[in-house]
C-alpha cells in the first residue's frame, strides 16, 4: 500500500504487469510511469467497470438531465407558446421582460426569504431535538438522551411519512377561518379576535402560516438525520467534555456541531432547494399566491405562465433564473462553510 501511495514503483503491486523498471522518485517521471501503467492495464474488468459505472449513468444523465436543461435554456430565448411546433427565436427579450415583471420579482423575493428562513429554522429545531434525544439526558451515568427518546424519535418522523400534498391539504383545513381546528381552539379559550380569522388570507400571517407547515413537515426528517450523525461521534468525547464541566449548550456548540458540520451543510443545501421550490406546499395552501402575493413562489408563477398563459418560452426563462438562484444558493452554503473553517467537502 505504501509503495502504491508513493507512486515510486506503481508496477510492483500489479501482478500481471510483471516487474517494472525501477523509477527514480521524481514527480515528472512518476506521471509518465502511471500513464503507461494505466494503458497497459485496460483489462475486461476495468472496461466493464467503466461501462457500468460511468458510461451508463453518463448516458442516462445526459439524456434525462442535461438535454432537458439545454432545451429549456434554449426555449427561454424563444416566444414559444408551448402548444405549437413553431418556436420563434426572440433572443434575450424574455429576460428583459422578467426583470421588469413585478409579480415575478415579488415571487423571487418570496422564494429568497423562504430559502433564508426555512433551512435555518428547520435545521436549528432539528439539531435541538436531535441533541435532546441523543446526549441531552441525565447528566449522571452514561451519555444518553432524554427518557423515552426513542418514542420521540419515531413520533417526530411521522409528518415526513405523509406526502407533502397531504400535509398541505390537512393544514389548509386546520387554518380554515370558520371550521378549522386552530380558530376553534383559539375562540374556545376566549380569544374572540380569532373568530373567522383567515390565517392564510391575511398579509401579516400568511407567510408565517405556510412556513410553519413546511417546518412542521420536515423537522422530523432532519432530526433523524442529525441523530444518525451524532451517534457517529464517540461517546468518550461527550464524557470528556462533561468531566471538564461543559453544560449541554456548550457541548452542542463546541463538540456536536463542529463534528457534524458536513451533515449540516448537506442538509442546508437540500432544505434550501426545497424552500426555493416549495411548489407542492404552496399549491395546496395558497394556490392563488396568497394575500397580495406574499406567498407566491417562482415555481408557481412558472407553472401559471406556462400552462394558463401559454407562454412556455417566458416560463423557461423563469426556470433558468430559478436554476441560477438555486446553484448560487448551494455555492453560498459551501462558501460560508469554508470561510467559517469547514473543509468544503460533502459528508463521506
Amino acid at each position, binding site marked *: 500500500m505504501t509503495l502504491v501511495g508513493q507512486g515510486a514503483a506503481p508496477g510492483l503491486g500489479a501482478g500481471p504487469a510483471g516487474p517494472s523498471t525501477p523509477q527514480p522518485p521524481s514527480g515528472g517521471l512518476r506521471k509518465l510511469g502511471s500513464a503507461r501503467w494505466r494503458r497497459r492495464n485496460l483489462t475486461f474488468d476495468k472496461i466493464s467497470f467503466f461501462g457500468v459505472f460511468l458510461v451508463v449513468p453518463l448516458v442516462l444523465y445526459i439524456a434525462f438531465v442535461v438535454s432537458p436543461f439545454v432545451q429549456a435554456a434554449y426555449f427561454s430565448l424563444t416566444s414559444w407558446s408551448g402548444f405549437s411546433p413553431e418556436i420563434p427565436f426572440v433572443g434575450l427579450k424574455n429576460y428583459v421582460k422578467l426583470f421588469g415583471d413585478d409579480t415575478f420579482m415579488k415571487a423571487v423575493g418570496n422564494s429568497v426569504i423562504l430559502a433564508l428562513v426555512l433551512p435555518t429554522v428547520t435545521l436549528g429545531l432539528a439539531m435541538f431535538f436531535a441533541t435532546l434525544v441523543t446526549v441531552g439526558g441525565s447528566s449522571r451515568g452514561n451519555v444518553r438522551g432524554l427518557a423515552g427518546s426513542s418514542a420521540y424519535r419515531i413520533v417526530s418522523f411521522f409528518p415526513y411519512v405523509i406526502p407533502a400534498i397531504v400535509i398541505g391539504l390537512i393544514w389548509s383545513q386546520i387554518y380554515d377561518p370558520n371550521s378549522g381546528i386552530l380558530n376553534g381552539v383559539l375562540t374556545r379559550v376566549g380569544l374572540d379576535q380569532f373568530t373567522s380569522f383567515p390565517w392564510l388570507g391575511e398579509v401579516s400571517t400568511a407567510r408565517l402560516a405556510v412556513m410553519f407547515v413546511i417546518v412542521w413537515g420536515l423537522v422530523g426528517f432532519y432530526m433523524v438525520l442529525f441523530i444518525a450523525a451524532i451517534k457517529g461521534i464517540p461517546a468518550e468525547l461527550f464524557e470528556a467534555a462533561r468531566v471538564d464541566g461543559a453544560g449541554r449548550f456548550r457541548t452542542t456548540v463546541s463538540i456536536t456541531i463542529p463534528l457534524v458540520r458536513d451533515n449540516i451543510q448537506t442538509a442546508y443545501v437540500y432544505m434550501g*432547494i426545497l424552500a426555493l421550490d416549495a411548489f407542492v406546499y404552496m399549491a395546496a395552501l395558497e394556490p392563488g399566491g396568497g394575500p397580495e402575493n406574499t406567498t407566491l413562489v417562482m415555481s408557481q408563477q412558472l407553472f401559471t405562465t406556462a*400552462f394558463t398563459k401559454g407562454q412556455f418560452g417566458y416560463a423557461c426563462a423563469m426556470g433558468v433564473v430559478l436554476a441560477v438562484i438555486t446553484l448560487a444558493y448551494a455555492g453560498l452554503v459551501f462558501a460560508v462553510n469554508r470561510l467559517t473553517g469547514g473543509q468544503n467537502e460533502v459528508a463521506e
Partner: protein
Amino acid sequence: MTSSLSTLRSFDRRNFLRGGLAAAALAATGGLAGCATSGTGPAPAASSAAGPTSADNPFGLAANSSTEAVIFKGGYGIDYADFAGKTMQTKQAGSTVKVTPATNIAQTLQPRFVAGNPPDVIDNSGANLIGINTIRDQLADLTDLVDANNYEGQKIAGTLYPGVLAPGTFDGKLVQLNYALTVYALWYSASLFESEGWTVPKTYDEMFELGGKAKAKGKYLLGWGKEAATYYQTMAIASAIKQGGNDVRLALENLKPDAWSMQPVQDVFNGLKKIIDAGYVKKGGAGTQFTAAQAQWSNDQDFLLYPSGSWIENEMKTQTKDGFKMTGAPEPTVSSTSAMPWEALHSTAAEGYVVPAQAKNLAGGKEFLRAMLSKDAATNFAKTTFSSTIVKGLIPEDGFGSTALQSQVKMLDAAAANVFSWNFVDLYGTNTDQLVLWNAFLQGDSDVATLTKGLQSITDKIAKDDSIKKVPVS
C-alpha cells in the same frame, strides 16, 4: 488486488460525490427541466382521407372510421359524452368513438399538440384548460358544423340560444363550440326569502338595505372563498355593463387605458365597498376554500346571496340544505335608469369543444359535435347535469325538478335579446392576478382606488405586451 484498489483510488471518490451533490442540486430545480419538450414533432399528418359528403354525412366521415374524443372530467362527468358517442355510432353505423377522460387538459395534451397528433375533438375545460388564445391558430373552423343540419334535420345554428357562439368566435372564425349554457346570476334560497318576506335586490342600494335586514337576523349578506373571489369581479363587470351599456364592455374587452375608471365601474365598486365596510360580508373568505365558503351559503345559510354561474347547483348538490330552492336573479344595476334593463343577462357558454385542424379524423371530430347537438344527446345532458346546453327549448317546465334550472330558463326568456358576455379575463389569463386584488378588497383591506389601480395595471401590462396576441372586439 492492490492494483484494482489503486484504480479505485484514482477516480477520487470525493470528486465523484461532489459532482453527485451538484447534480442533485441541479435535478432539484425541476422547474427548469419541466419546461423541456419531448422533442418537436414531425410534420403534421395530413387529415384523414375524407369520404363523400351527403345530407346524413355533411362532413364526409370516412366509412368505419374511428374518432378520438378527450373529455374534461369535472363537474359534468363524462357520461354525457359517452352517450353522445353512442348516438353518433348509431347514426353513422360502422364508425367507432373512443371517449377518454382527462382532468388536466393542458398538461395531458400539450405534447400531442407539439407533436402534431392531437385528438379529433377535445373538451377544453377545467382549471387546467389550454388558453384558447394559445391554440386558436391550430383549430378547425366550425362554421360548417353550425351550418349543417342536426340529427333531426334542422339547421343547427337555428336551434341554439342567441349569443352562444360569440365566446368561441375569434377574428370571425368559430374555433370553439361552447356546449353548456351558463347563466351568471345572484343565487339565493327562494324558501328563505319567502319565509322572511325579503325580495331580491335590484340595485346595490337595495342590496345594502337587505344587508341590514340580514344582520338583524344574525346573517351576512355576501360571502366568498379565496379561489373564487373574482366571482365578485364577474358580478361587478356585469353590473357595470348593464348600467353603462356596451361601451363599458368594449373598453374592458379592448384593454383600454382607464377602462376600470369609467363611471359605471366605479359606481359598482363603490356600491360594493359600502356593503363591505358595513360588515355585511362574512369575514374570513380570503382564507377559506371556495366550496367550503359556498357551503356556508347553501348549507349553513350564513349569508344570503352568492354571485356565481349556473353550475353552482350541480357543484353544491351534496352540500345544499333540504328545501333550499336555489334560485337565480339577474345581477343588480347601480340605478333604475341603467342603459340596459335589470333583466339583461350575463350569459355565455362554457365547456369549450375544439377540433384541432391537424386531427387525424377531422370529420369525425365534427360529427361527434353534431351528435352532441342532437336533441337526444342535448336533452340527456340537461337531464343528467341539471344544466342547459346551448340547444334551446329542451328544458321542460319543471326543469327536471330543479328550481335553479327553472329560474335559468325564466331569466333567459325575460332577457330576450339583452344577453351579453365578455372574454378578456379568460382570453388573457388574468384571473390569477386579479384574485389577489379581490381577496384584499372583499376582506376590507383595500379601497376602491387600490382595486382600480391594480386591475388597470393588469390590463395595461397585457395591452403593452406585444408578445400576446390581442383579439379586437367590436
